């Protein structure tokens, strides 16, 4: 049985975990909280550098041996990625174990599939900078639709900052929205399978300017943005004829978004999966888990190819582990 250490630090959450084939053995994290405004990449990276040692030693303390170290190679903020990658390389060299560079977005998907038991879902990946609808086809996760400007999390955070709320803004907007009653029309922008949120943020700010209640604006903001996301997901499900939907990414913790997707799936006869909240947000366990899958299918990253990729796209990755997993499953069935 292999033990894999995973390091995650693409944005504001620094997290490390050790997993094996069956479970998450240890995990620890340290979260950067900006004093005011949004995440400052350099300050977040400095936070990670200061906390890394403590976090890693907490998950490694009782283990005599690990088999590989996985780290999130991207996408994310450059300074944060570089800090974590440096630590991963150092561990790999010092312990003489292989390094596995992992795509952060695919890690979200794979831990979701693992935890929920989804086989071949349409994935709605919603986080600070990303809003994508993905599905697996012919050896890759394909991006079927995505935001043309900012991610939904970023849109929520921007609007929250305008309201004077501290980071992260999403949960606070959700809380305000639950008290909203009046619906205000805001721009609903779906272009085929793609989405746009920046106009929505501007219109929501304008609505506040003309004296609408902030609870009502938050409510309308959420209803509009999440209806857009749900519609695009539904299109993907209809277009590809898939029967499962998986939610991934930090914004996935929003109960209203979960509710909308649940209703949509229920009406279409599809099954809907949401991982636990701790696996929705950025976490080391998902990096370790995808690292494990890649390690076992023979994919490791030599040091010279371990440079971080701040714009790493999920559809750049050749997915070898799904076929390997299938093979293992069929072998087990034959036995």
């Amino acid at each position, binding site marked *: 049985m292999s033990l894999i250490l995973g390091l995650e630090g*693409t*944005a*504001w*959450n620094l997290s490390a975990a050790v997993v094996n084939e069956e479970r998450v053995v240890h995990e620890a994290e340290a979260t950067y909280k900006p004093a005011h405004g*949004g*995440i400052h*990449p350099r300050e977040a990276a400095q936070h990670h550098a200061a906390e890394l040692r403590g976090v890693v030693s907490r998950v490694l303390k009782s283990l005599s041996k690990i088999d590989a170290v996985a780290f999130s190679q991207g*996408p*994310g*903020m*450059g300074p944060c990625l570089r800090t974590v990658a440096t630590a991963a390389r150092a561990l790999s060299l010092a312990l003489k174990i292989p390094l596995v560079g992992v795509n952060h977005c695919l890690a979200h998907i794979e831990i979701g599939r693992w935890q929920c038991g989804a086989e071949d879902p349409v994935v709605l990946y919603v*986080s*600070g*900078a*990303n809003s994508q609808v993905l*599905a697996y086809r012919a050896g890759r996760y*394909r991006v*079927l*639709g*995505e935001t*043309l*400007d*900012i*991610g939904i*999390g*970023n849109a929520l*955070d921007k609007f929250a900052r305008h309201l004077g709320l501290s980071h992260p803004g999403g949960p606070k907007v959700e809380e305000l929205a639950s008290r909203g009653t009046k*619906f205000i*029309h805001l721009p*609903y922008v*779906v*272009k*085929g*399978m793609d989405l746009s949120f*920046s106009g929505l943020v501007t219109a929501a700010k304008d609505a506040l300017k003309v004296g609408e209640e902030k609870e009502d604006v938050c409510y309308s903001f959420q*209803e*509009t943005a999440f*209806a857009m996301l*749900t*519609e695009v997901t*539904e*299109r993907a*499900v*209809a*277009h*590809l004829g898939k029967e499962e939907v998986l939610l991934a*990414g930090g*914004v996935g913790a929003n109960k209203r978004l979960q*509710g*909308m997707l649940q*209703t*949509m799936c229920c*009406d279409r006869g599809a099954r809907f999966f949401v991982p636990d909240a701790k696996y929705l*947000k*950025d976490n080391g366990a998902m990096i370790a888990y995808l690292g494990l899958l890649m390690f076992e299918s023979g994919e490791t990253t030599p040091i010279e190819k371990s440079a971080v990729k*701040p*714009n*790493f*796209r999920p*559809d750049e990755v050749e997915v070898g582990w799904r076929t390997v997993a299938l093979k293992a499953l069929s072998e087990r069935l034959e036995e």
Partner: protein
Amino acid sequence: MMECIQRIQCAEAVVELEENCDLVCKRRVAKRYRVKEIDERLRRERTKSEAKIISEARRRGVLTPIIFDISDYEIVMERVEGVLAREVFEREGEADEGSEVGEGSEVGEGSEVGEGSEAVSEKIGEFVGVLHENGIIHGDLTTSNIIVVRRDGRERTVYFIDFGLSFYESSVEARGVDVHVFFQSLQGTHERHERLKDGFVRGYKKSSPDAARVLKRVEEIEHRGRYVKRKREKTENWRREKTENWRREKKKKTSTPKFQDTHVRERYNHPSEQHACKNSTKRVPAANAEDERDCTRRPGSCYGQRNGDERN
């Protein structure tokens, strides 16, 4: 009234094919997941605009179903017998269907697998060009929204359906997004999509005089999020080129205001920057910096800012 024989549940509507008559009824059904205000507005607006644009497109020579009746959430229209483009592409991409593919206009040209698909794709491109020339954006150009029809052994032709997300606009950007959506649907559902893309481009150039500009924009749109590698290469090439030009210019005449202006303007016009700069207007004054280091670094930093901004 009439007995319904077949109901098809699409993403946003139910399509009913009625017995003994060549009618299709497309009804937008209520979606429980969204609030009534959004739901009713979207359904009403989309039904109305769809009907309007379907008949407009037809008048302009693009094949679409004839409309017979329309109410709040419902359109009754002509039934088009044929095969979805998606199925045609998938079938012809997978297996050699000599008899199917070799017929029609391609006969005698050494028909290889998929040549028929390419001709279909070309026809699609041609019609999309006509739509765009008349200021119509389809808005949801996927291979499931195109029906391939063959009548009496004549050349295959295509019908466009589902204009639910269509709108009037003639900007290069809107056309580019439209074409981009089509390419995406080819990529998402078909493994050998490059050839189909080529076919589309050929047809599109035939009917649209603005094709070159639109197709260039399509590339730019792809670079905004997709295919980042290519974008990075492109940005680097552009940066190198700019630096060289800048040096050359500097030798010729030492900083005059006129030169600075054009320099800045060129920068604004650079494809990969247009989008990124929208998000970083604050940084724009930096473009004035005369310092060479700063000027070479700009594309990267601008780009980095867009993507690195608050990623979770």
